[in-house]
């Protein structure tokens, strides 16, 4: 173990209490939400007993099915396209001779992270309205896939780029030295070694798309309700623990995706 420096936060007085408070504020509401998802009563703040009734109600709901299907179609498509694009961008920006526009290109790729989401949402909405009005084009759910792909790219790009930058460049030289032409070097050495970064990027992109609300809310047309929009609509009616059940399902899917990608990344690294 490393020696503890004088600035080690863990040795400061009150560290434990602050940490506990932070953990409480972060997770207590979620915990309460999960507990009330198995409430048998119909009021979300009044506990009556344990039951999986509301999970059954949620899973039997056709609107929920359609929202879940939309969410999956959008999230998976956006994740695949964004990850492919981000992978190419990361290779193009770490495996080339430095050029003048490199810094600018980096900023452009990451700009969606810095632009307030509501601005992007309004801009995307007006863009699709323009395309529909002037060109008569409407891609249906494709509009949402395009919008999601765009904001997913920087999330997928970050871990892939980090992985490529960490990678020892002499490994690629060694492959070339051992008679591997550029494509083989990429396929046999660069790609397998960057896969943990690609998996992290995919997981992030998926989660970001999966729970996006602001942009989806503005861009979505009729019949394009996603799970976050569905939950939002539910809150405008008298709320039942069904909403807790749906939220818990969403949370579990997120946890499964992140855990799976972390496990794959760790196994790849070993």
């Amino acid at each position, binding site marked *: 173990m490393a020696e503890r420096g004088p600035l080690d936060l863990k040795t400061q007085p009150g560290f434990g209490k602050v940490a506990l408070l932070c953990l409480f504020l972060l997770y207590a509401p979620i915990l309460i939400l999960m507990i009330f998802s198995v409430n048998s009563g119909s009021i979300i703040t009044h506990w009556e007993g344990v039951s999986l009734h509301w999970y059954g109600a949620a899973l039997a709901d056709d609107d929920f099915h359609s929202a879940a299907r939309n969410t999956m179609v959008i999230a998976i498509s956006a994740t695949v396209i964004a990850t492919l694009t981000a992978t190419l961008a990361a290779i193009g920006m770490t495996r080339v001779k430095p050029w003048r526009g490199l810094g600018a290109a980096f900023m452009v790729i990451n700009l969606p992270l810095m632009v307030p989401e509501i601005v992007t949402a309004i801009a995307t909405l007006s863009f699709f309205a323009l395309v529909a009005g002037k060109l008569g084009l409407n891609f249906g759910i494709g509009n949402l896939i395009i919008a999601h792909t765009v904001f997913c790219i920087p999330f997928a790009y970050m871990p892939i780029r980090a992985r490529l930058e960490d990678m020892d460049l*002499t490994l690629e*030289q*060694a492959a*070339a*030295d*051992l*008679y591997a032409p550029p494509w083989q070097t990429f396929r046999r050495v660069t790609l*397998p070694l960057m896969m943990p970064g690609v998996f992290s990027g995919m997981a992030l992109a998926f989660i970001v798309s999966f729970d996006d609300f602001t942009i989806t809310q503005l861009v979505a047309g009729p019949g394009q309700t996603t799970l976050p929009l569905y939950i939002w609509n539910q809150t405008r009616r008298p709320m039942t623990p069904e909403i807790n059940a749906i939220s818990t399902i969403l949370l579990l899917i997120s946890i499964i995706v992140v855990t799976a990608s972390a496990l794959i990344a760790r196994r790849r690294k070993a």
Partner: protein
Amino acid sequence: MPEQPSGSAIAIRQVSKVFGSGSDAVTALAQVDIDIRANEFFTLLGPSGCGKTTLLRLIAGFDYPTTGEIRLYGDDIAQLPPYRRPINTVFQNYALFPHMTVAQNIGFGLEMLGRPKAEIAARIDEMLRLVRMEELKNRRTSQISGGQQQRVALARALAPQPKVLLLDEPLSALDYKLRKEMQLELKRLQHETGITFIFVTHDQEEALTMSDRIAVMSKGRVLQIGTAHDIYDKPAERFVANFIGETNFLDAEVTGVDAATATVRVKGTTLQAGLPEGFRPAGKATVVIRPEHAELEAGGADRGTLGGLGGVITNVVFFGTDTHYYIALDGGGDFMVRRQNSRGTAAFASGDRVGLRIDPGAARVLRD
């Protein structure tokens, strides 16, 4: 085609390498000419920044010369990418593929060359035997020690039977004992495979013990090429004399020159000193004498058999096998004498007056 001595594996002709351009330009190599013979253990020796690694990278193909030619058995390969050169490299950090097993690493080159599976498998086993690693065949490279990784890196580079093997300071990450062991191992491998080795190091002792011939480099230039004996006994320039082993520098006056030697006067003593090839000094010159080529004589009143050279011992340092005597010469200047302790001759102490007897043929004039 420019003439190339027969049997020369690599001919480097007027190779220069300039990094950057304009006022930022840095010359890493300046008109380097080297001939490396087939089946030779050739070492590029020099301090960091002397251009030895740049030259190795040019031979490997990781970089291209600004001017000049690199010939491999007569063919100019200077502009070929690395994967088209029958040359393999052992990297300083080994650069083993972490996602492959030991066997997969060793087989990679042959696989890329499209050799049949059976041949690759047989060659992997042969290489594992050669570097004595049979039992680690299916390990991941992250599960083996530094010394073992070194052997795998060697096996991987030797497996495709390259015409030339490049070694970029491959022993620098190993501890002293393992390094000694690997020096012998490398000599054995070179002998058994008959492949031309080009070895880069900044460690002069490593260069002297392993190489058939050595090129001493400094500031992008090759100063001297020769056998370990040539480089040690007949340094041509101050940098070479200083970089390889320890030595004494003395100011001298040249009084006569014949074919291969000069007559010089050093502090009133007349010595015969060897000359670098093709060098005819006149007037002032610098003479070098290795510390083991001088013997101490007690008293020093008559100043030794050659007369003239003597002084007072200022410091005595014991090194186990030998002892170093530091002497302040009469008339200025320092001189160090190394005496083997097994000689059993009388010991000298700090403050003693001594005369110096220089071994015949030990003094050399430097080109400076």
